[in-house]
């Protein structure tokens, strides 16, 4: 119950607000939140502590906005931007604050502070991103470069999630050992 109330529910609200502000969504917002919340609960029940939870959630949120608002593929990167912000805030709070409960409360507060405080910037970034996505010979940055940067950042996000999930599920070893073990420099996950 606590994980839903303090984990899934705030995150679902966060994703909904992020999309509403970025895309200027004015209709079916309650439905959007409900579907995201339902997907969050479903995937957390079956894919908890797995990178596939995040991948499925990302894909499902994209499908939800595609069905509701005829979203384009570029919105996958908008959703992944929300994941990146969430990941960075989570890492910062977890490593700087030793008390888990305090870290959780501050993390949730920061999450909403960022999305509400930066709502205009998020919208402008999204509009700018859209303007350079398709080929435009007058643009300063080529469309293919923008797309390359986008997919590389998405790949880095996925790796960060894999490492993060492994860190939170391991029982021994430190962060460094986990990271090194992933890249085959240690025989076991304990880093021995």
């Amino acid at each position: 119950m606590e994980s839903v109330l303090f984990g899934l529910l705030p995150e679902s609200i966060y994703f909904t607000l992020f999309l509403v502000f970025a895309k200027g969504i004015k209709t079916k917002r309650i439905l959007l939140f409900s579907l995201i919340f339902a997907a969050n609960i479903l995937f957390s029940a079956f894919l908890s502590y797995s990178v596939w939870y995040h991948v499925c959630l990302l894909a499902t949120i994209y499908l939800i906005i595609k069905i509701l608002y005829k979203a384009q593929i570029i919105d996958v990167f908008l959703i992944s931007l929300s994941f990146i912000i969430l990941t960075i805030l989570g890492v910062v709070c977890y490593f700087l604050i030793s008390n888990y409960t305090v870290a959780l409360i501050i993390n949730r507060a920061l999450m909403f502070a960022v999305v509400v405080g930066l709502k205009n910037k998020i919208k402008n970034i999204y509009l700018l991103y859209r303007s350079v996505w398709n080929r435009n010979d007058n643009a300063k940055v080529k469309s293919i470069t923008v797309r390359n940067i986008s997919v590389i950042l998405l790949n880095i996000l996925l790796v960060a999630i894999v490492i993060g999930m492994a860190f939170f599920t391991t029982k021994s070893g430190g962060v460094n050992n986990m990271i090194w073990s992933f890249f085959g420099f240690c025989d076991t996950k304990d880093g021995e």
Partner: protein
Amino acid sequence: MNMFKAWLDKWWRSIVFNVAEIAIIFLLGSLLDLEYSYRIYVMATWTAARLLIGKPKHYKAWQKCLIWTALLFLSLFVIAKAEFLLSIVASAFCAFILSNRADINEVFMWKPKGESKYQKEIEYVKYNPISADLISFEDRLKRDNDNLSVMCYEYIFKQGKSWQEAANDLDTETYKLAPIVEKVAFGIRLSCKI
């Protein structure tokens, strides 16, 4: 033999570049001590996806192509190191994104394949909403023109409505919109230097 020689003269640079690129990317996997089979699967998935999806995007300069492809595959190999199946999915997704199939497609006034007379102006307004020239044009339009011109601009150029939809919303006929839309389009071309 002559035909083969002509074909080789035309394509030898491209063949040499592609073979070298494949070799360099394959060797990138050694930086991460990635298994050979994983590298082959990721590269094969990428190639197969590009062929199946079609309309791939390319750089004109071979240097940019090599650098960006190397960075992309390095990121895919890092994923493969952590979660192999995910790297296959990511490889196929990247191939899709780096093709013209992932372009933003908006439904404009007419059918997607048929272009409107004002397609360039409509696309400019759609994809450059924060352009200083366009904002300046909008301010002048609101200041100097009647409401009908402003609403035409809003409905047809910004919201992408069809002429019929705009005419219904404005309670007028489509033929009456033609001179107004022409005037607005001319203003956009002049202000935004299209």
